[in-house]
């Protein structure tokens, strides 16, 4: 079954992404949520989602570290990771690329773009 993990410390943003992607549930996708990097890593290990929408600025463990751990340490290179940042700085983009992120999205993102991307990655 297709799984999408949504990681953001802001409940609003998690809810926004849930509303954005909920129609995929009708097509058999499962939405998972994490409110920080540590929880996200646990879920990624246990559930192995195909797509992770990952906020950059979070307490405890930031998105770069999560991304780097997944892609390099755990060598789960097939997981498609989208970094979401509110900073919009090139430095972040470079750090994201170094951490091995597949895509880098600047907030505010367009819900339709996120949905389209998710359909493409999950092939549904």
């Amino acid at each position, binding site marked *: 079954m297709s799984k999408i993990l949504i990681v953001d410390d*802001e409940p*609003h*943003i998690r809810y*926004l992404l849930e*509303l*954005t992607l909920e129609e995929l549930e009708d097509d058999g996708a499962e939405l998972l949520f994490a409110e920080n990097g540590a929880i996200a890593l646990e879920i990624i290990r246990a559930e192995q989602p195909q797509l992770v929408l990952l906020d950059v*600025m979070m307490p405890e463990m930031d998105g770069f570290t999560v991304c780097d751990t997944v892609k390099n340490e755990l060598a789960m290179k097939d997981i498609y990771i989208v970094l979401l940042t*509110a*900073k*919009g*700085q*090139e430095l972040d983009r470079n750090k994201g690329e170094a951490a091995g992120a597949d895509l880098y999205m*600047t*907030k*505010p*993102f*367009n*819900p*339709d773009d996120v949905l389209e991307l998710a359909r493409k990655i999950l092939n549904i």
Partner: protein
Amino acid sequence: MGSHKTCILVVDDDAFVREILASILEADDYQVLTAENGVQALEICRSHDEIDLIVSDVNMPEMDGITLIKTLREQQLDLPVIMVTSVSSISVAVDALSSGAIDYVLKDEGIQETITITVRRALEKHQLKKQNTQLLSDLAAKTSEQQQTLSYLTAIINNMPDGLLVSNSSSVITLANPAIAQMLGMPMDSLIGQNCCQTLKNIFPFMDGTCCEHKQLSTQVTVQLANGRIGSAIGAPVGKVTDTANNEEEFAGNLVIVRDVTAERELDKMKDDFISTVSHELRTPLTSVLGFTKIIRKKLEDIVFPQLPTDEPKVAKAVRQISESTQVIISEGERLTDLINDLLDLSKMEAGKTSWKMAEAKIEDLISRAINSTAALFEQKGLLLSSEVSKDLPLLDCDADRIHQVLLNLLSNALKFTDQGSVIVRVMAESDGFIRFEIEDTGIGIDEAELPLIFEKFKQSGNTMTNRPKGTGLGLAISRQIVEYHNGYIGVVPAAAGSIFYFRLPVGSNDGHYLE
């Protein structure tokens, strides 16, 4: 001695002697005044300041010659006096000389020659003496002027906030001010007399031995100062002019000026942090506002509206109003996003922190990319968009994405301010090695008074109070930064109808920018 005749005062109680002396001297083309004794002579001297020399007898009633000299000197009258004395009283003549007479003449049969020669010699001698006095007083004035300048300079150097260090041609520190001593955390007397290349090479990287060689040192670097402070140091050679005519200089040492820039750097960092924080804090709520509004619109349009009885006028009106209102929220939210992005872009460019990706690009590709991204919008508004690109244009060394940003900006401005007609994009090579890009519209045009302002931040043509601003007001300011980074120039000229915005870029003279 001026244009008037040299004037000699002859003083003698013997009228015969006076006349003889006067006639001898007048024959020599002097102007002659006479007096019978010292008292009379003094009066004449006081009332006639043109007198150049006195020829005086020694023994006279009322006041003798010696007393006359003494009185003249007492009264600060620096007139040369020649004593005329009889042969028998030569000891008196010696007295006279020691009292200040310039010379003496014996009253004998040879007086006609001796007086002429003595007068000439006395005048010359007195002239020399006067010149010498003048020179000495000029020198004293110059010295005092220099001392004053020196004390000003010393006060300036000792009190200036910038640190100053001077070394001579052998790299020995000859001058250091209190500011540099404090900046380096070293007492002044531990600096002066030291070899700067040995003592300070760890602080100033340019003091590496080569700085002692001629004119090597002319550089600006950031240096680490005492107490964790940061300085900006300028080093420059000191030249001593050896030949004014040929402008030749000899290397006389080095000068280092250090400015404490700790506070400036902190401010810069604070500004960057501030912009980054503000941008983050603005984007997060904006993500919710825009995202949820778009979700609401979608749910309304896909699920709610189809369920409504839209044949009821009130419901139809509400549906329309809701659609319009959500659209306003979305477009204004997007404008706010653009504004944040533009502000970040511009502040980074102004701070020189943008990373540029310079590469050779095909101009035709730049133009077709820009036209492709805007063609649909022009079509929607019923405007004709066309391009005229010269054939055989060279490859352009540029950051293609940034030049695209400029073209997009100018095209969307043309779109915004043109209600009917057409927009033409032109590219041509200019004779001076520049490529000229033009975007001509048939829009509202720009008031001539506003032309110099429109490339400034937040300066949009038209009254922003009455006309709702379109866009962020930063597009042209960003475009200018981009074009100027490429060593180009951006400008605007009025067209037959509307305006022509243009920018010129050099084909291959961006040397030096790649390293930034």
